[in-house]
């Protein structure tokens, strides 16, 4: 069981698209910055398998330029 937080950088002009794509993944919670081209992403997964699969899905999103992990907790 792990909870991780990331900084997700969208391509220019693709912020809303990225919010929509990430929000559609059940294990993801998204907090967009109000005034910058950046999102905070929190993932909450039950095991390593699910975590890997979610990470793969996220990295396949076209509007995502860069994903940088900030913190991780094993619960």
């Amino acid at each position, binding site marked *: *069981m792990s*909870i991780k937080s990331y900084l997700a950088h969208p391509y220019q002009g693709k912020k809303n698209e990225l919010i929509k794509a990430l929000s559609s993944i059940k294990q993801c919670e998204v907090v967009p*910055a109000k005034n910058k081209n950046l999102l905070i992403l929190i993932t909450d997964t039950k095991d390593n398998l699910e975590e890997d699969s979610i990470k793969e899905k996220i990295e396949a999103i076209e509007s995502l330029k860069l994903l940088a992990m900030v913190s991780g907790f094993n619960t």
Partner: protein
Amino acid sequence: MYTSVLTDRRSFIKKMAMLSAMTAAATMFPGILFAEEQERGLPKSKGLDWKKAPCRFCGVGCGVLVGIENGKAVAVKGDPRSPVNKGLCCVKGYHSVIAIYGKDRLTKPLIKKNGKYVETSMKEALDLIASKMKETIKDHGKDAVSIYGSGQWTIPDGYVASKLFKGCIGTNNVEANARLCMASAVTGFMTSFGMDEPMGCYEDIDYADVFVLWGNNMAEMHPVLFSRLLDQRSKRNVKIIDLATRTTRTSKASDRSIIFEPQTDLAIANAICYEIIKNGWVNKSFVEKHCNFNKGLTNIGYGLEDKFKFKDKPQKISFDAYKKFLEDYTPEKVSKLSGVSVRDIKYMASYYGDPNKKIMSLWCMGINQHTRGTWMNNLVYNIHLLTGKISEPGNSPFSLTGQPSACGTVREVGTLTHKLPYGVVMNKKHREIAAKIWDVPVENISPKPTYHTVEMFRALDRGDIRFMWIQVTNPMVTMPKLKRYRDAAKKEGRFIVVSDIYPTPTTDIADVILPAAMWIEREGMYGNSERRTQYFEQMIEPPGEAMSDTWQLIEVAKRLGYEKQFYYKKETHIEEIYNEYTKFHKGKKHGMAPLEVLKKESGVIWPYVDGKSTQWRFNAKYDPATTKEGFDFYGKPDGKAIIWQRPYEPAAEEPDNEYPYWLNTGRVIEHWHSGSMTRRIPVLHKAMPFAYVELNPEDAKRMKIKTGDKVKLTTRRGNIVLPASVNERGIPAPMQVFVPFFDENFLINDITLDSFCPISKEPDYKKCAVKIEKV
């Protein structure tokens, strides 16, 4: 792993993860807003009560709001009302309450019996401490007992320690770890201005056009203040110049990163002064009215030998003599010594010299932990004094502190061997003031300073000191040339008391361990870098028998027979102590706000005069203590600041054939000093789990060293093996390495050198010679 105190632990952890990300984002994108989300991300319940406090970690003094639920601290957020941080917090601040609830908190006093620690009652432990102190004084004299405290002591902690040792017992064996980080700033202020602490305040950041960071990795060490600099850049296109010996996150975020050879900052500062004079940028009217020129002794030594003594002999000189002295510091000559290009020296000088640019110089450990630390402080002031860029909004030489109350407690209360809450022990009038307020015979207060920190531990080794009480600090991680002092503490006939909240390498050498109340488990005040005094109430109960450092000292003082002086009541002692302490600072030069004002406000800057803070001292426009128009540097008898002639002199130990690299030590953003608290915060520990040695990528390539490889560092004091870090957090210049000191499993101070500035007695942790080998 941290165990949440909330019923919904998972949701709490999710919120903490979110806060970590917000903090990282705030560092990278100054001015980024998540305000509503931040509020939404914090635990909400009817029982949650938000209370204000200053952050417990660095010297910035951010205002935080601590969420209390069912007697537990469960969350932290930046206080939007605080003018320091305006609602922001760094990664340590956001997670600070987790440090309260580590599984191995000390909750019972422990006494060492037959080599093993045995639990005892607080009464028995305090009785033993008092009886050991009496016995030591009887057998070896009053100068055989000592206390070593901290810039993390609250104001009341430091005040009662000073009163007990200096006023009642009659020894000046009072020191604090701020000697290791801020002493050069103090002697710099005293020699240049005759009064300690910055003349300006953080609001200078909102007015300055240029920021020069002198050996100061602000992005990691003062991240919230650094985000204020970056915020100004996004709004006003200000310039940030990072002058350092190593490429850091600060360098990467700056407009210009300038790397210099260690120790040559002395020459660079003089070269800037040379350029200012040569180009006619001197503010002649300011200098004529408000400055004197002095020179002091040279070739002043490094304090490497026991009982080292030094006393400077200031001598007045003329402007022409000073100008002549600077001819040795042309940009061309200094460029050869420092490795900084002539162009970059002129670039910095041109900003200082431009009358239309307001400029802030900021520094911390790079300048202070320096065998010529006092000189370096003087030299930065020289630049500001020559150009008249001082004591007005945006023109500000600003010495940053490292600890939450290095200023408030160590410097203002005066918990150093030579200091009193007002003035110094050497001054009869100052001793009389202290004796009157402390209600002790004036003869009790010795006119002679005893030992500064390094010498205090040397005295413990020699046997001149037999009893030492250590509070809120971890010297068995932080002392330079540590092995000597660890062995000293373990010698027969020494008695060591350690008050702390967790087991540390320092509790390992203790004969008695006292569990201490941490931060919001007791009431107190801190004073930050900008002269801001901040109050915090007791919000939660300390665990087990843990007791505040203040009350521990009071209990022992009473047992030593000083009931009259330590008359304080348990319920009201903090208020009584603060009211007594502020008697020392009455008046326009250092008046302090009444407690009821501190309770309402997010801190108050002293001098507090007629209900107002004084933000810029020495300037008649802002400072009611001035007695003449324009500027009045009233710390000096003639109201004039001093421009000091201070030369370049080499470091105590420089690289040679046998030890060809420079060793530099320091901190990382995730950990507070020796890591005893932050290494118990899982998210921070995971982010930065162990120490490492940073190498220059070219050096690493030549030695075939990759990140993670084991590297042996050898100095004349010993050796240590660390994992390598190449092209990661920081990048040292060629032939230099950097090691952070937060990790008690890799005690880098076992191999550092205990050289110090002969004036401030502050050790130089930034420079010694080391050999590097791949293991």
